[in-house]
Structures are given as C-alpha cells and as structure tokens.
C-alpha cells in the first residue's frame, strides 16, 4: 500500500512540475503586465500544491506550516506587485495628460 501511495504522489508531482514549466513560459511571453502577474500567481498555487503533496510523501508534518506561510507570502507578493505597477501606470497617465 505504501508503494502505491508513493507512485501516486510521484505521478501527481511530475504533472504539477510540468504545469509549472508551462506557466513559466506563459509568464515570460505574456503580453501585458497583468497576465504576467496572473501566471506568477498560478505558479505560486502549483508550488503550494507541490508542498502539500510532499508533506504526505515525506511524512513531515511541518511542511504543512510551510504551505500555509507560502500561501500568505504569495498573496502578499501579488498585492505588492499590483500596487507598485498601479502607481507606475497612474503616474504615466498623469504625465501623458499634462503633455497634451
């Protein structure tokens, strides 16, 4: 039974890492800032699920705490990035308005 669980977790991990690579390509190629941040957010979700799978695969309970903290940090990163780019965009629009 242990081997079966191990095989299942391995399959799930391989699929998740392939999806992460695809999302990374999307983040590099995405045309606008918002779609890049969106792809980064998705990579964070996939990494979070990888940590959760590893919690049971390695049977280390503390990795569940790491997953919780990781969720908070990724949310904070998205909020800060959005605020920063929003400020930059508003400044640019104000400058363009003054020029005209």
């Amino acid at each position, binding site marked *: *039974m242990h081997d*079966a*669980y191990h095989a*299942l977790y391995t399959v*799930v991990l391989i*699929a*998740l890492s392939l*999806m992460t690579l*695809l*999302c990374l390509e*999307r983040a590099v190629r*995405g045309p*606008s*800032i*918002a*779609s890049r*941040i*969106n*792809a980064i*957010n*998705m990579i964070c*979700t*996939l990494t*979070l*699920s990888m940590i*959760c*799978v590893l*919690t*049971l695969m390695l049977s280390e*309970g503390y990795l*569940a*705490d790491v*997953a*919780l903290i990781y*969720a*908070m940090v990724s*949310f904070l990163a*998205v*909020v800060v990035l*959005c*605020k920063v*780019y*929003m400020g930059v*965009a*508003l400044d640019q*629009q104000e400058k363009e308005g003054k020029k005209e």
Partner: protein
Amino acid sequence: MIEGVRFGLTAVFLLGGLAVLATGVRGLYRFRFALNRIHAASMCDTLGLLGLLVGLSISAGDGWVVLKFALTMVFLWIASPTASHLIARLEATTIYHLDRNMEVLEK
C-alpha cells in the same frame, strides 16, 4: 478493504484536482486577453487546490496536518479572489485599448 477504499478515494480526488489544474493551464494558453486568463487561473486556485487538498486529507493519518490543510484552504478562498480583483483592476488601468477587448459601458 478499508485501505483500498481510502486509496481509491485519494486517487480520485487527486486526479480530479489535477484535471482542474490542467484545465486552468490550458485556459492560460487558449485565452488571448488577461481578463479572460484571470478566470482560468482563479478556478485553479479554488477548485483545483480544493480537490488536491481533500485527496491528501483523506490519506493523511495525522489530524493536525488535516487542520493545517483546511486552514490553508480557507485562507486561499479569501486571498485568491482578492488577488484576482487586484489583477483585474491593474489590467483595466494599464490596458491601451480596453474597448477592443470588451464592451465598455462607461469610462
């Protein structure tokens, strides 16, 4: 017998969560506009991760681990729509031709 049922349930939930996540990644490639992509990505955050965590909770023996997974899920259900809202507002602010993507009622 009980172990077999447990393994089957775990496999069903894990693979279901993976299918939802794969649909979200496919959506990132299929949709052209960022506002459409947000829809695919936020579906991943809520339903895909829920499937994975329910599957993992069924196979976990430790109660504390299940509790922490539940806490992660509750936090993500609050945080992920907020993040999607912020990204959508950023896209609506920075986009050059908003009316080419969708019908704009008032600006």
